């Protein structure tokens, strides 16, 4: 099945390993990935402040208009923020007369046809749950990750505020989502009981003033340690980067010595599918190397 794919800015930087593993894994599961032509930034969680609500709409309208040209009904992205913005603006254009007109005018200014909001925007995880299904993932596993203990950390925007809505495909719950553990189990690894699975890392606030949000990430790491996890698995590029890069700062501030790898479920799948640890799983891009996982990878 063909999906239009929105890589998002992080795919070319801090989230490269997410992008690479996604591109490697999804076709294996029957999802053909076609990029949006000349995609741009979604505005993330600050665009409406930096530029204003309508400029933020402009960014997304352009992406959607370009996505439409691909001719696929479905669009997906692996980035939580990209998903949130694209999805929300898509709904706004579809349901809100004022927004639809604004979008049309904006697109016109760019020489584009009006866009009516008729595309369906999904998160990569929703695609796995609603379009692929765990059975298919299991089938594809050739290298089960026996003995790997994984803490499934969903984070926030991947499920909130859409996972329980019709437009979110009802693919899981806000407070106690299980899709991440399902993927872990499907890969033959062990999903440990991870209480703060939907806790927030601080998001962009963590980037701009880490000192204020370190305590949030400390708790995430503590709980993972308590649960005896070898790795933390998260679908969100910002979560992954934050939790990875601030571990040292946390150790410094709290006198701890955390060194827990944070990986993407796509990376787990790539390894479990017996694919190339570097080319497909991009494990070399984790600054805290997931050694145990790397060992399991088929050379």
């Amino acid at each position, binding site marked *: 099945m063909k999906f239009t794919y929105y890589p998002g800015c992080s795919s070319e930087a801090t989230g490269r390993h997410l992008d690479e593993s996604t591109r490697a894994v999804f076709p294996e599961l029957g999802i053909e990935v076609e990029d949006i032509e000349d995609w741009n930034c979604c505005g993330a969680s600050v665009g409406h402040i930096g530029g204003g609500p309508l400029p933020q709409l402009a960014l997304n309208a352009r992406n959607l208009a370009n996505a439409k040209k691909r001719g696929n009904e479905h669009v997906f992205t692996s980035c939580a923020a990209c998903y949130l913005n694209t999805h929300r603006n898509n709904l706004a254009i579809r349901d809100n007369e004022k927004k639809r007109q604004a979008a049309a005018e904006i697109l016109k200014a760019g020489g584009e046809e009006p866009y009516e909001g008729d595309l369906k925007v999904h998160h990569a995880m929703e695609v796995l749950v609603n379009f692929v299904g765990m059975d298919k993932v299991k089938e594809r596993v050739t290298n089960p990750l026996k003995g790997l203990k994984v803490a499934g950390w969903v984070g926030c925007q991947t499920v909130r505020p859409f996972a329980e809505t019709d437009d979110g495909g009802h693919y899981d*719950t*806000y*407070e*106690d989502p299980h899709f991440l553990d399902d993927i872990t189990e499907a890969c033959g690894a062990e999903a440990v009981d991870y209480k703060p699975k939907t806790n927030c890392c601080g998001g962009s606030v963590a980037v701009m003033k880490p000192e204020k949000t370190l305590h949030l990430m400390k708790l995430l790491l503590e709980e993972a340690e308590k649960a005896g996890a070898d790795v933390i698995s998260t679908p969100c590029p910002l979560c992954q980067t934050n939790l990875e890069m601030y571990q040292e700062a946390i150790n410094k501030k709290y006198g701890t010595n955390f060194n827990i790898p944070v990986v993407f479920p796509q990376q787990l799948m790539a390894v479990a599918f017996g694919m190339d640890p570097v080319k497909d799983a991009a494990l070399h891009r984790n600054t805290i190397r997931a050694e145990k996982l790397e060992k399991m990878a088929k050379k």
Partner: protein
Amino acid sequence: MTFVERRGTMAQDGPHSQTIAVIGGGIAGLTAALEAAETGYDVILIEKEPALGGRVTRLNRYFPKFCHPTCGLEINYQRLRKNPRVKVLTMHEVVAVDGEKGNYTITAKKLPRFVNEKCTACGECGKVCETEIDDPYNYGMSKVKAARLPHEHAWPMRYVIDPVVKGTDDQKRIEEACKYGAVDFSEEEEEVTINAGAIVWATGWRPYDARKLETYHYDSSPDIINNVEMERLANHDGPTGGKVVRPSNGEPAKKVALIQCAGSRDVNHLPYCSMICCLASLKHAAYVLEQYEDAEVHMYYIDIRAHDKMQTFYERLKVDPRLKFIKSKPAEIGLGEDGRPYVKGERTIDRELYCESYDLVVLATGMEPEAKGVDIKGDVVKDEDGFVLALEGEDGGQFSCGVAAGPFDVALSTMSGTAAALKAIQAVGAR
């Protein structure tokens, strides 16, 4: 010393039946049935449980009088015993209703009791029965023999046997133990139809499933219970013989949190206010304060809704310094490191964020109508929330009362039950 005098037997049925069917044997249904019968009408009272009394028979006390529901029920059962006009069908679950005024057909599922009317409640079957089941009377907070009297005040006073023993050695033992030929394992679930000229819906309510309140982690600890379970906990014939203790370890529950609007007033759950919860929780506070000198009770609320005459009741309890009122809808409840449940949120009056541990947390879960899933046709409607209402202005023959009609307390249920009796009488033709 009571006497029964035989009065007119059941009127001949068929088209234009004058019989009134009351669906549900809780306080509202009992009231409707008895008031109609005592006015001289034939009534069929249909109850799905093995005994009457519904929710109220499981309550410890009523607010605001702190009297025991069984007190009023006893009178109602006396009235019932003395009144041959009321025919009681227990273990009959109504599944569909069709027809029109004067001629309704009610389809009910008759569940096997495995005990017939020859039962004397001697208790021999219970003695020999080895299988135990979760006691439905105690909402599964305790075990009970599979062959049992539903509870000490059960009416009819007759045993019931859980299907699990069918085909086991227990079945043989039970059959042998009964001297009165009252045990009958050949009973099968069957569908029966009942004809009536008017119908009163008194199907009542069930507590809103606390598991749906994901942030309150009801399943994470036995010390997080709901309000109906609290009633059992405080009841002399409940799982703890009336001691309010921590279900997890039997220790005294002295520090208790009462959480209002657990499901109610929430567009994600029950949009309406369930009306009884605030007052029930005040009552629960009293249970704890009564039992422990050094009790500490915190009531988390959005609004304390002491309706009609209840304000005085609220004022009375307010003066106890051991009872604190915290205006806050807790954001999170769960099992803490110390093995005790914690409650977390924002205190709205001073905007303090809190996270406090308790011995026991009671969720004031709201009321959800039981009529859901029943296929009702004709002159009655079910609203979005599942409450049953007679069509407005229509001259129909179906009516509702008690919590089947809306979130009512007991006083409103008996009131609407009596009113429904009149409407039903008018429908079958007042004489």
